[in-house]
């Protein structure tokens, strides 16, 4: 949790001051002189930029409450008396107190470009936390409070210009899609602070690169979705993933990342109407099916069943891949715990077809019209095709002969009526 991490890394001196001085602190004596100028909204620097610092908001900030003075951060003004001071002050170094989190930031995606390339676009402390009005993380007004984080991060990551400039930032549209996701909506609409926010997955100060965080994803999601994580690691995909296989799907392969939606949302990739396409992404991929010897034609054979036809025409109540195979806990049918194990098939069918017996599950499911799938169906189909072709052919032949005969007789009649002498 960011809050505990914050408290841990807070300097012990600040904690002591916080306890001693918390109730009803007013401005520290030394700050008064600063606010003589800086509390004036009209006051500007030589370039016309405001130098305003709202003394009231500053007083509520965690640093003022902890008894820090302006010069505690602006060290170059300590003991300074020849006002006004130079326009350019030295950059405030937060690591003076927050050295732990600074190191984390320094090794993450934001710290690295700043350090290595002097890239000032990368977020520094103030870009996320603010400058003079920093509030405790648990304060609803804090810029890094769970419900406020998306807005703070999207200030950069939702900006197409900035995202286009730095490859590692990814697409601003994808980042923005978080707002509409199930997590984003939980934060924004429902005010659920326990819902995943930016730092829940990416970390706060040490934000990892995509390839670094990829192997961590199932565990990351599992921090909140613990029982599902257990299901996943015991399923065929999770087991393979844990043994180092990177071809198997992890959470984000099926659910998406920023744009995760509830399975009930028709737009979700795991909604009934999309889930079969989702599974087919790998199970119809010839390179994957050959590599692992997976059975072919799963989607086609499903689409040919009543379930597949009904689903493709808009009836979402019918069985989809997940209805029979499960989702997080998918197991091979040879596994006795698998929903598709022969001994459990009747039970699986029975979830939708109450009272389905052993007979109900008797017979191949993913049939592709081959004789070995269902010899009876294959034969019946062939007999019908021949019979229908023969019968319709017979009909058409009979009709053609009938029509020609009608025309012949009509012409003969016309001839008779035109030449009455000849008859």
């Amino acid at each position, binding site marked *: 949790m960011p809050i505990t991490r914050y408290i841990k890394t807070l300097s012990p001196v600040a904690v002591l001051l916080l306890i001693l001085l918390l109730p009803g602190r007013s401005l520290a004596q030394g700050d008064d002189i600063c606010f003589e100028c800086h509390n004036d909204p009209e006051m500007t620097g030589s370039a016309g930029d405001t130098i305003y610092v709202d003394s009231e908001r500053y007083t509520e900030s965690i640093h003022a409450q902890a008894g820090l003075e302006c010069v505690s951060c602006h060290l170059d003004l300590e003991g300074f008396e020849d006002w006004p001071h130079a326009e350019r002050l030295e950059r405030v170094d937060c690591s003076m107190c927050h050295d732990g989190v600074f190191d984390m930031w320094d090794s993450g995606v934001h710290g690295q470009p700043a350090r290595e390339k002097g890239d000032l676009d990368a977020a520094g402390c103030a870009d996320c936390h603010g400058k003079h009005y920093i509030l405790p993380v648990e304060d609803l007004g804090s810029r890094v409070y769970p419900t406020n984080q998306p807005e703070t991060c999207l200030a950069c990551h939702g900006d197409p210009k900035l995202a286009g400039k730095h490859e590692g930032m990814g697409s601003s549209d994808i980042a923005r899609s978080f707002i509409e996701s199930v997590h984003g909506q939980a934060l924004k609409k429902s005010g659920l602070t326990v819902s995943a926010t930016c730092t829940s997955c990416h970390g706060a100060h040490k934000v990892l690169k995509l390839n670094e965080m990829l192997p961590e994803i199932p565990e990351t999601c599992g921090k909140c979705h613990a029982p599902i994580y257990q299901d996943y690691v015991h399923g065929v995909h999770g087991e393979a993933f844990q043994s180092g296989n990177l071809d198997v799907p992890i959470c984000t392969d099926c659910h998406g990342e920023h744009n995760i939606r509830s399975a009930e949302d028709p737009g979700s990739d795991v909604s009934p109407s999309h889930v079969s396409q989702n599974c087919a992404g790998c199970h119809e991929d010839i390179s994957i099916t050959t590599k692992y010897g997976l059975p072919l034609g799963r989607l086609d054979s499903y689409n040919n069943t009543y379930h597949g036809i009904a689903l493709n025409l*808009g*009836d979402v109540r019918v069985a989809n891949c997940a209805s029979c195979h499960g989702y997080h806990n998918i197991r091979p049918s040879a596994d006795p715990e698998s929903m598709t194990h022969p001994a459990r098939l009747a039970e699986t069918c029975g979830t939708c077809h*109450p009272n389905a017996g052993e*007979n*109900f599950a*008797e017979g191949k499911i993913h049939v592709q019209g081959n004789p070995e799938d269902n010899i009876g169906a294959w034969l019946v*189909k062939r007999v*019908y*095709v021949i019979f229908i072709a023969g019968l319709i052919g017979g*009909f058409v032949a009979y009709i053609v002969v009938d029509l020609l005969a009608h025309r012949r007789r009509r012409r003969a009649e016309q001839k008779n009526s035109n030449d009455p002498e000849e008859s």
Partner: protein
Amino acid sequence: MARLNYPMQKRLVEHDGRLYYERFSRAQRLQHLGLLSSFTLLILTGVPLLMPDSWIVRQMFWFEGSFTLRGILHRLAAVALLLVSIYHFFFCLFSPRGNRDLREMVPSWKDITDIFGMISYNLGKKKSPPRFGRFNFTEKFEYYAVAWGSVLMLATGACLWFPVKATILFPRWVLDIIRVVHGFEAILAFLAIIIWHMYNVHLNPEVFPMSRIWLNGRMELDFLRHHHPLEFERLMESVSADVAEKIYCQLGDVFVTDTSETQLH
């Protein structure tokens, strides 16, 4: 089966001062209407399942729940067909009219020879067509095709409607065969109606653009004399002399008064 008597002369009906042969009674026309509407609805709601990927089928299910509605309509139409079938069954057994028509429907050796007779006539190898009774071989064929098709579709449809109950009797792979049968029998019925029945009652030059018998049940006596001569003769035998004279008068044979000397062309 008890033979219920249905006198021939009851088949003669008068309308606007003219005499007609009553081909189908009101009860029969209603049965046809019930069959027609349930069949059409069954085809419209069933055939989409046979070509789910086609563009036209995708357009059919444009609103939410339309596929569910399809299922409901298909089952309702099936129940309607079942009711028509049950009604027809009892109609054939217990109404004099239906009973007589059922007996007329019994296939005979003559039907086989008529097929070849008709083809020979159409190919110009015979001078005259076979002489048909009330129902000719094409009509009998259609009737049995519909009867057999309805029984088969109702039975297989019931299995697909109640798969859990059906699999008490047999394993599910049989149900998969039944699904194939239901689909192909539907194609067969659809094509038979579109090609065979539509030709016989619409496009055939004898009735084009449409035979109106299914609406009013009346057949012109001249048409009867030409296309069902055996039935016409039976009719003439059973009617009284003055009715017979009226019939000949209407057919244009006004100068002949002695029926025994009448020559039909």
